[in-house]
Every structure is written in C-alpha cells, then in structure tokens.
C-alpha cells in the first residue's frame, strides 16, 4: 500500500515535468508571418507594396500635415491654433524637431523590401513583378523628394546651395552597414531621385498591371518627376527642360485630362476623377476623423487651417480673395462655386476637402499641373508664346480671364489659384527665391516677433530634424539655426 502510494505520487509529480520542454514554449504566431517566408509570389509583393500606400495616408504625411506644410506657412493659409495644432506647420519650429521624417522613411523601408526581394524566385508573372518593383522605385523617389524639400538646406543662407546637406538616401532595408546613415548632399539626392523615377518608369512601361490612379503608374511617375525637376531647377537650371519633357509626356500620353469648369467641384469628391494622375485611397473606415485633413479645414474644435485674409496694411500682399477678385463672379475655383465656407467666423476651404470624416481620396498630383509646368519650362527656355498657350489651358477651364502674357509671375499666380490648399505654395515661393509674404500681421505667425514673416534664406525654410533621429543616429547633423 505505501509503496503504491509513493509510486503514484511520483508519477503524478513527474507528469508535467516529462511533458514540458523548449518546444512547448514556441509562441503562437497567429497574427503575423516571418519576413523570411512572407514574400513568395507576385501577389505577396504587391501586398507589401500596399503598405507603402497605406503609410502615405498617415496624418503626418499626405493625410494631413504634409499638405498643410505646403500652404499654412504661406500667403494662402494659416493655423489659428484652435487645437494647439498647426503651429509647427505655420512657422513656430521647435528645435526638438518636426515633421513626417519617420513616416516617410517608413514608406521608403517598404519600397526597399519590395526592391530588395529576390524577384527571380517569386511565383507569378515576371512582367507584373517588374511593374510592382517599378512602382516601388517611383514611390521611393517621391518620398526622398518630399524629405529633401522639407529638410534639405539648399535654400538656407550660408549652407552651400546644391552642395548643402540633403537627406540620407536609403536604398536598402536592414542593411547592417547602413543602419545609421549620414546625410547626402542635395545634389546627390537630386541625382538619386531622378534616377529612381526613371528606373521606375522603365519598369512600369510594360503596363502589366491595369490599376486606377490610386496606384503609382508610369504617367504618375512622369508627373511627379516633372514636379521634382521643376523644383530642382532652382539648384540646377538644366532641370527645367527635364521638367518640361516629363510634363509634356504626361499631357500627350496619359489618359488623364483636365476637368471642365462644370466638373471642377465634383472632381474633389469623385474618386479617381478624370484629371487624377495619382491619389491616395481613403475610405470611411480609415476614419481619420478629427485627425484628418478635411477636418483640419472644416471642423470647429480641431479645425485650425483657415484662409489667411489681409488687414489692408500698406505693406501687406495679396490674399486669396485679392487674387480671385477680378474673376470673382465666374472663377469656379473660389467663392462663386461654393468652394469656400465659413467656420467659427473665418473663411475656410471646404470644396477641396468635401467630406468631413476624411473619406475622400487625397490627390497627390493631377494633370492640370503638367500644363503649368510645361508652360514654365517653355518660358524658361525662351518660348513665351508656347508658354502662354499652355498657361491659358487652365484658366480656360475655370471661368477665368486668360492671360495676355506668359510671365513667371503669371504662371505662379495661376498655380496659386489652381492649387491653393493642395500643398504646393510654399515650395513655389521657395524655389523662386521669395520671402514669405506678409498678409496679416495679427494672424500670421511671424519669425521671432520682429513683425515680418521669414525672409528667403531664413533657417525656417527647413524643418529641424527630430531629437529621436539625432539620438539614434550620431551621423545626422541638425539643420542650421536649431
């Protein structure tokens, strides 16, 4: 009896000890997959690339801040600081850092996974794989361009122009030798950006995937390359012709056509409208809500980007009302067409961001810009007559008076009218060497309280690089003035 007792106790005691070991501790992987085995087909590759688009819809990239950064610092818009938001976009740059740096590099990392995958080993149509990799190249180019124009030092006094500090151009994912990259020069960035656009276009020229404008395409890559090259013209004027050629390619070869006056307003709430070259898909369930771009224009509590209106001081420049004054009754882009509303007693942009919950797709680039880029390229090449034709293609479709001469001022004016609140204005002012115009000394956040907005060459023409990057990466040099 006693022996039996002992025996049973020992058996019982050892039951679990015998049955447990290292392999019982293998964690369940129910939600994720190992990266090593995660990409096995063209479809897998495309799913990975989808996350690049997904990350581009972050609120501090194209879903809000990045667009605002292009307007809220300028003579178009300002932040009324309603929510405490929008001060940094509006010129109050804390040295602690600001902006979409990490988000954009998060997109770049995805493109590098796609580009660095072992394409030959994947199941699926090789042409489709090429096309997907081409999209990744073009997105990588766009991302670095967006980084460069916000963090590059090329417009800041005393930093060396084209040879000043750009951003690290990252071409590999998890490369142990390149985990803490230093900043490349602006010129080196420009070369890499153009090369990535061209490489992407080459790979996408097979047209293997028939996707709508919610995805990168050869036409979108040409269009973005045109935008980038036009901007790079400020550091190397030879890029103007590149910009012109790319824009012309889009005008001639893409299926996108400028929208008519009647269709203008609807194009903002129509997904993949006829003028769209590249846009980011948004749905109701993405639900950026109070954090979305539309809300920042339309909302009350968390709405804070408002149209900057002048206070009639002698030195004050033209606000949006002033530039639309001549065609106020006919131009479909402004008050007459319900594009402008009022929120908390201030005029604000509503027509371009019609749905408050942020479920409208976000336009990155549309074909009208190609006409104005081509016009500018022609003008800079000395062909004023050709420039006038393309310049007037836009007002002709907007119920506006055509221009009688093609000048840089007129082209910039038309760009401002067509693209206000779409994130282009700051870069137009900067690339043409202009200071931020004074519109309203009470509303505008001025540089260091001296009564004037930042002058061209101010350190505020570049955002500071965040403390988190500087902590982890000793090779990063902070921008001047911070």
């Amino acid at each position, binding site marked *: 009896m006693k022996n039996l007792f002992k025996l049973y106790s020992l*058996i019982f005691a050892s039951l679990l000890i015998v049955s447990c070991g290292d392999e019982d*501790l293998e964690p369940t992987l129910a939600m994720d997959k190992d990266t090593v085995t995660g990409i096995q087909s063209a479809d897998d590759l495309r799913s990975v690339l989808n996350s690049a688009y997904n990350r581009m819809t972050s609120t501090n990239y194209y879903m809000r801040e990045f667009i605002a950064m292009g307007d809220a610092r300028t003579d178009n818009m300002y932040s009324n600081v309603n929510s405490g938001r929008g001060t940094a976009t509006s010129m109050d740059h804390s040295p602690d850092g600001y902006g979409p740096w990490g988000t954009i*590099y998060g997109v*770049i990392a995805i493109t590098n996974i796609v580009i660095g995958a072992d394409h030959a080993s994947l199941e699926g149509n090789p042409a489709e794989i090429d096309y997907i990799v081409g999209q990744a190249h073009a997105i990588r180019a766009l991302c670095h361009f967006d980084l460069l124009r916000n963090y590059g030092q090329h417009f800041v006094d005393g930093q060396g122009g084209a040879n000043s500090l750009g951003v690290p151009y990252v071409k590999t994912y998890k490369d142990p030798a390149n985990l803490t990259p230093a900043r490349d020069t602006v010129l080196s960035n420009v070369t890499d950006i153009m090369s990535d656009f061209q490489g992407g276009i080459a790979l996408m020229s097979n047209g293997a995937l028939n996707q709508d404008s919610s995805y990168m395409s050869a036409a979108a890559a040409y269009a973005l390359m045109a935008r980038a090259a036009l901007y790079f013209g400020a550091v190397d004027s030879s890029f103007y012709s590149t910009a012109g050629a790319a824009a012309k390619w889009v005008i001639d070869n893409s299926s996108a056509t400028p929208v008519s006056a009647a269709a203008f307003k609807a194009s903002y709430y129509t997904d993949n409208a006829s003028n769209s070259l590249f846009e980011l898909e948004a749905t109701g369930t993405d639900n950026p809500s*109070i954090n979305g771009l539309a809300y920042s224009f339309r909302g009350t509590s968390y709405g804070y980007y408002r149209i900057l209106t002048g206070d009639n001081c002698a030195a004050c420049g033209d606000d949006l009302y002033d530039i639309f004054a001549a065609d106020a009754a006919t131009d479909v882009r402004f008050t007459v067409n319900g594009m402008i509303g009022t929120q908390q007693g201030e005029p604000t942009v509503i027509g371009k961001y019609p749905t408050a919950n942020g479920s409208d797709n976000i336009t990155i680039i549309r074909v009208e810009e190609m006409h104005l880029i081509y016009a500018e390229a022609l003008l800079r090449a000395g062909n004023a007559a050709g420039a006038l034709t393309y310049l007037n293609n836009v007002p002709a479709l907007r119920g506006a008076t055509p221009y009688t001469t093609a000048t840089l001022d007129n082209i910039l004016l038309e760009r401002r009218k067509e693209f206000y609140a779409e994130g282009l204005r700051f870069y137009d002012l900067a690339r043409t060497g202009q200071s931020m115009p004074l519109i309203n000394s009470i509303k505008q956040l001025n540089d260091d309280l001296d009564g004037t907005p930042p002058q061209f060459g101010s350190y505020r023409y570049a955002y500071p690089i965040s403390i988190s990057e500087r902590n982890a990466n000793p090779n990063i040099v902070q921008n001047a003035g911070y």
Partner: protein
Amino acid sequence: MKKLVNLFSLLLLMTGLIGFAQNTVSGVVSDTDGMPLPGATVVVQGTSIGVTTDFDGNYAISASEGDVLVFSYVGYVSQSVEVGSSSTVNVSLESSTALDEVIVTGIGTQERQRSVASTVTIGEEVLENLTFISPDQALNGRVAGLRMANISGTPGTASQIRIRGESSITGNNAPLFVVDGVPIQNGSFGNGATPSIGILSMINVNDIESITVLKDASSTSVYGNRGSNGVIVITTKKGSAGKVTYQVSSSYGWQNKAVEGRQPLSGAQRLELAAEMMTNDIGFSQDAALNWMLTNRRDFRDWDSRGRVDTDWGDLVTNKDAPVQSYDISASGGDADQNFRVSLGYKDSEATNLGSSFESISGSVSYTRKFGAATIQTNNLVSNGKQLGQLESTAYFGNPNLTKFFMPMTEAAFNPDGSYLVPHPASMHHTLYLLENNIYDSDVTRALSNSSLTLDLPVDGLKFKTTFAIDFVLNATHDYQNPIEGDGVGEGGLAEQDVSRRFTWSTINRLEYNTVLGDNDHFISVVLGQSFQKNKNHYMYAYGEAPAADQLFYVSSFPANRDAAGSFSDWKVLSYLGVANYSFQDKYIFNFTWRNDGSSRFASGYRFGNFFSYGVAWNISNENFLADNSVVNNLKLRASWGEAGDQNIGLNQYQSLFGYSGDYDSQGAVFPTSFGNAIISWEKSEKLDVALDFGLFNNRVTGSVGYYQRDTKDLLQGVPLSLTTGHSSQTQNVGDVRNKGIEVELDATVIKAGDFEFDIYGNVSTNDNEVLKLAQTADGEDINLDGFYTATRVGRPIYEYYLRQFGGVRPDTGSAFWYIGGDGVDAPVSFEETESYNAAQQAFSGTRIPTTVGALGFRFKFKGLSIDSNFTYVGGHKIYEQWARYFMQPGQLSTLFYQGTTELMNRWQNPGDITNIPRMRWSSSMTTTGSNHSTMHLHDGDFVRLRDLTVNYNFPSDMIGELGLDRLSVYVKGTNIWTYAFDEDVIFEPEVNVNNGQWQLWNPIPKIWALGVNLSF
C-alpha cells in the same frame, strides 16, 4: 487521466484509515489574560483527530497518554502539549501579534527567525477599515523602499508601485503580483485616453488576510523570471476551525479634491491681458486694443453682450462630496478536518469630477478539507467591476480636467433658457454636456481560482503539493460619442465596443522536505518545484457611425462605416525551482535558491535562464552572550545576494515579422512589424542586501536597518533605431542600471501605562538611481535617450530632467532669458545669458525619481479606542508641470485660444518690474514668448501628506455580548486629508505620474472622510 483516477481512489482509501479507541482529554483554551478562546483548534498530532473549543473555550478530545495535542488559534502562537496521566489539559496561548512569528515567503510561510529575506507584511489591522477601492492602496507608506502614486483619481484606476527604484528604461517597472502562491495578471485595461481599470482593483480587500512585499534576492528569486522589480504576495483569507462566525462591515465616505490646484483667470483678467498683448506688440492704445478684442473676438464679444458674466467651468464639472461606500459580509468556520469561508462584497465610488465612477461586486469561496495525509484546498474569487470614465490624461477637448485650465470663463455654458449651449462655439468642447451624453465604460469580470492538493508523504517531513490555478479576466469596453457636441460630430455619432479575454492557467508541483536533526541543532528544509504557466488573449473590436435615431448606444445601431478587428496572442513560461534552507541551532541560517525559467518570448536556444541566490543570517540574540540580555531581545544580521529576472517585453519581439492588419484600397497591406533580434534573452537583476533586525526592551522597540543594491544588467529595452530604417526601435539586451540605498524601519511603543499605549512607527528609504551602461551605435557611441525635457545618459538617473535653464525676466524689457547652459558633455556649461530660447542649451536639471521616501505614524490606544495617523513623505526629486506651457504662456494661448491661470496677473508690465512671468506678447508661440519647456515649470517635488487618519472604537465585549455580538467597532477615517508641498510654487497635486514625473490632466486625487462599522457574531 487514468492516473488521476487512480490517485483519487487512493485518496479515498486514505480517508478510511482512521480509528483508535482512547481516553478523553478535556480542558480550557484561553489567552494569556485568561480570556477563553472560542473556536480554537485542538488536534492530536500525526492524526486527523481534531475538535474545536466551544464558546467558553472548552474542548474534549479522544487521546491517549503520550499523544501530543496541538492547540492553535488564529493570531496566537500554536502550542504542543504531550498528554500525561491527567485527563485535563488547560493551555493559554500567547498572542503572536499578527504575523510576526511566521512570515509569508514567495512559496509559503517560514518562521521569521529562520528567514534571511527582506520582506514586509501588511496584516489585517491595516487592511481592515480600508475604504479604498484597490487593495494595493494599503501598501502606501507602510513599506520601506516602496513608492506608490495614483496616476488618476478616478476610482478603480491602477496605482503605480515601484520597489527599490526603477531599473527598466523603456520597459515595465511594476512588481509581480502573486496570489496564494501563483503569479497573477497585473496591469490594467485602458486606451490611455480614458482611465485605466486596474485589474487588481477587482480583488476585494476584505478577502485578503495579508499582503507581503518581497524585496531582496533570496525572496524574489523564487519568482526568478519576473521578480526583478520585487514581488507582492497576497494571501487570501481562509476559514478556520471554530464556530461559524459572521462578519459584516460597511463604510460610507465623502470625497473632494486633495489639492485644489491653480485658479483660472476671470473673464475681465483675461481681457486685460489680451488687450495688453496688442498694446505691447501691435501698437494699439489700450482702448483700441480692448475695443478690438470686444469687436473681433467672438468669445469676448458674446461675454460682453451677456453682461460680462463669468462661467466657472472648473466648478461646473466638479463633483462635490463625491460618495464612496462599501458593504461586506462573510461567514467562516470549520473544525479540525475542514473549514470554509464565503464572502460577498460591494463597493461604489464616484470621482471628484462628474462623470466617473467605479462599482464592483465580488464573491469568494474558500474550502479546506483534510483526508488523512491529504489536504485539499480551494480558493475562488469572482468579481465584476464597472468603471464609468471620461477622457483624461492629456489635452482632449472633452477632458473635464482640461476644462478648468483651457475653457475660458468668458464662454457660456447655458442658453438663457437654462439649456446647454451646444454645439458650443468654442474650440474646447462643452464638457458638461459630454459628461452627460457620452459614454466611456469598462466592465471587467475577474475570476481567480486556486486549488491545491497537499500530501504528507510516508517519509517524515516530506510533503508533496500540487496546485492548479486559473486567472481569467474579461473586459468589455463601450464608447459612445454623441452627434451634437464633441469628437463624434463629424461622424454623426459613433459607437465602439471591444471585448478582451485574458486567460491564464498555472500548474505548480512542489516537493517539500523539512527535518530536524541532532537534538534540534540542525534544521533542514528543501523544496523542489516545477511550474508551467500559459496565457492566452482574445480581442474583438467593433465600430460604427451615424445611428438612425437618438438614444441608441451600441454598435449594432450604428450602420455607417462599420469597422472591426480581432486578434489572438499567447505566452508561456516553464520553470524549475530548488530552495534549500539550513539552520544551525537557529543561530546560523543559510539559504540557497535556484530557479530555471523558460519563456516563449525568446527564441529557441535563448529561452532558458538560471537564477541563483544565496543568503545568510546570524541570530546574534540566540548566542549565549545575549541570551539573558535585558535590553536586546532580538538581533539578527542578514545578507543575501542573488539574481532575479525580467522578461517584460512585447510578444514575438525576437522574430522579424510581417504584420497583416493593414489595408489599402480594401486590399491587404503587409508591413514589417518588429525589427527582430533572435538573440534576446533574460534581463537579470543582481540584488545585494545587508540588514540588521533588532528588538529591544521587551520588543517595545523593533526595527531594521539595511542597505540594498540592485544592479540590473542586460536590460531588455527598445533601443532607438534611426528612423531611416523604417523602424523606431529594436528590442535588445543592453544597458545596466544600478539602484542602491538605505532602508530603515522602526516601530516603538513609547508609552505603555495600563490601558494606555502610544506608538511611533515609520520607515524611510533612499534611492540612488544610476545608468551604468547604455546601448551603443556601431561606432561605439552611446545612444542617448534625449527628449524634449528628459535625457538618459550614463552616470545619471533614468530620464533625468534635461531642460533649458530659465534665468528669469529682464526687469528692463520684460523678456524671458535663459542661460546658454549645456550639460558639459554635448555643449560647454555656460552661465552666459540669452534671450533666444533656441540659443539656450538643455542641461541636466534634477532627477524625476524621488531620492527619499518615508512615512511616520503615531498610534494611540486607550481601552477600545485607537487613533492612528500615518504621514507619508516623498522627496528629493523634481516634478514637471508641462501644461503650464499653455496656461502660463504670456501670449495668445492663455488669452485668446484657451485660458490662463491667475499667476499671469504677475506678468511684467513696466520697466523695473521684478517678476518671473514675462511680458505679454502677440504670439501663439511658446518658444518666442518664453513658456516652452524649461526649468520655468520645474519644481521641487517634496511633499508630506497625511495619508491616513483613523479613529477606531472597539466596544467592550461585555457591552456587546448582550447583543449577541463578538465584536463591534466603529471608525472615522480620513485619507489624504492634508498635503504640504515644500516648494511654494507647487500649488497643484504633487503626487504625479511616476513614469514621467509630470503633473497631468487626470481626475484629481481625492481626500476622503469616511465612517464605518465592523461587527462580527
């Protein structure tokens, strides 16, 4: 399964092995004062024969000459008496003054004099009369080396507990909680925006017999894998032999803010300051500026047209005299073979702001049954808690705590007809409306079940115990945001619901052997154990927008933009344990602990870690030279060294993974989740303890003095990566942190004269926190963890304040100035002054971690009356008021967009003004107006708080005996009723978030006055 059946049939057989025929022995069991002890247990040693005493302490039991009778009674020292020729055995039991003689360890109990450990136990005398909601509150001020703070005053919220400083930089510093020998899930449910619901608050204080804090290596290494940050062992109440006793207790209290805090500007003050910005910077005359404000600013205009009536928003959202109440009833009883306890508890508490509350109901059953050599015991607790919350913590416009500081008094709350003014035209939300119309609730159900079988094996002193425990936490949260006002407007109203299930089961097998050899000279105790714990988590979430009608609150009624999520995860820990104790004549004690743990959080090959500890103690008072010393009754020198570990990282961190939760254009979007690091393994803490315990003057003065050092090595932390990698951090085993300090505990009976007694008790501990090593880049440079206002560097405490040095305000211009500063590492230290915020450098500005934590208590007793007061002190650290950047900004934020506090009235106005508030500027920039992060908002954190004041009266037994009661006591209890901050600028709550040292926008911590009654019969 078959084996189990065999085992149980065996147990059944065992129960039949009873029965001898003997004589009857009888007597009376009493205490040392001669009072009979009803319900005391009398057992014949080595048998299952046992009886309990009756109401007069009488017993009668069958025993023969030579048998040993064991007399025991809760709270008294057990006594063994050998039956002689007499058939009468009367015994008097000595009070054990709670749990002094036997201490709770990580795996059971141990005689105090044979322990080498550093532990502190909170017994029933503290736990009783707690009107607090969560049992961990009892630890505040009672344990040397333990710091505690309540991040939010919302009832049901988890507290923050730190034992002997902080060791983890990016991970968790919370201790491990163990209930009846089994680690339980700790933490909370919450999304960061609404108050978290602490799952410990699900345990009813009235079901707890004691809480023991394990601090040193020898005690915590028993929980090797998770003992790094200390262990808190909760022992639940069980039944005891004796008649069935019923206990009833109830309390009712009133809560108000412990600290009132800063006061907002009145409408007129705000207007004056707003106009002053324009006269200063725009060149307006004061009249023109006032006129501009009243014409162009809607809020001033409306306020003016209403006759300049201010709205005190802070007052509107305050819940004055918020009630807190609790009711408990329990019954327990038993005999020598079995006992039981059942209980039922109910608590309900509101918060000091409107809209938040916590209500819980709990039940427990405990049953013990002896069958011969086998003892089966089961303890089961089930509770449900429902917390109604509101947005808290940070600047959500719907946060009622933000309202006081951010909603201008110029804004009306009501329409002229008395209805709410919604939608409100201000950028801040109408929080009063939101408090009534939005819903944020958490409903947590928790079940803890712990069943064990203990077998006394046929070898003398050998026992086998197997335990199976279940810990199930079910949380359902529900949010509803109305379509009229607040954050749900853009969606036309929205509802969210989620359900989270966390199930953990544990099995523990343990073989224990105790023996005494050679005339009681050698005491040997050995424990071998093995345990396995598995946790699984299920989560489901649903979302919808735009209901078709009002008064609908759940997702099914919200048809638009439906969204859902669901996930599963699990983790497992496998452990082996060996403990050996040896005591020679109870003079020299040696302890050895070995623990081997394997965790699913690490890769195969890196899963297992070994943790060892060694302890020695010398009971000096047991030496002959102190044997009859009239002063020194107890003197023990003890020391221990050993390791404990931590695995506190997220799941699947060692793997490089793709996540599949994203989507684009309604197609799957696959993104890399963790960077991966296949070689991560256990983090280890090396703990060193040296301490002297003493008892003097008949143990009227007891205490201990000790030194501790805790070196945490190979820290598991998220090491920042360059964002250019597409990842923000990688989990690595890197970095060392040292915590060291002194701990002193003292309890002295100063006066004892007849029925009068006066005691002073207290503790004090110091902490010196230092980072010894940080992660480095490939180039060998430290990866500093610098932030906007803190930095972590080698040679300094974790997250030390790192701020620009505010110099003051220039008397001639009213501009703020800073010292160029610098920390001497990245920039030279300079006291040169600058008026440019950007030109000033951040510099180390003081630690966030208190260097001294202590408590001092005074206890008076006279007959049935006792008065106990406990003051706590926390100090040596700095606290940061980061929201002052807004409400003390001398510019547009405080006067146009939001609201300022009255300190701004001291702003600089004229040349020669001496003040610390700069001139009002026409700017919304915190940088240019001088209110951005700097030492301007950094204050000394030292404060004293009267944490607890209890006046208790026990009615004499002759008075209540007629009522049929065994005990009746009533009490008045004050909690947090007095607070004193040493820094005169700290006119806000000084008990701040432990993690970041910041005063934040949480519901205020309450001061509570409560009345209560306890009775038993």
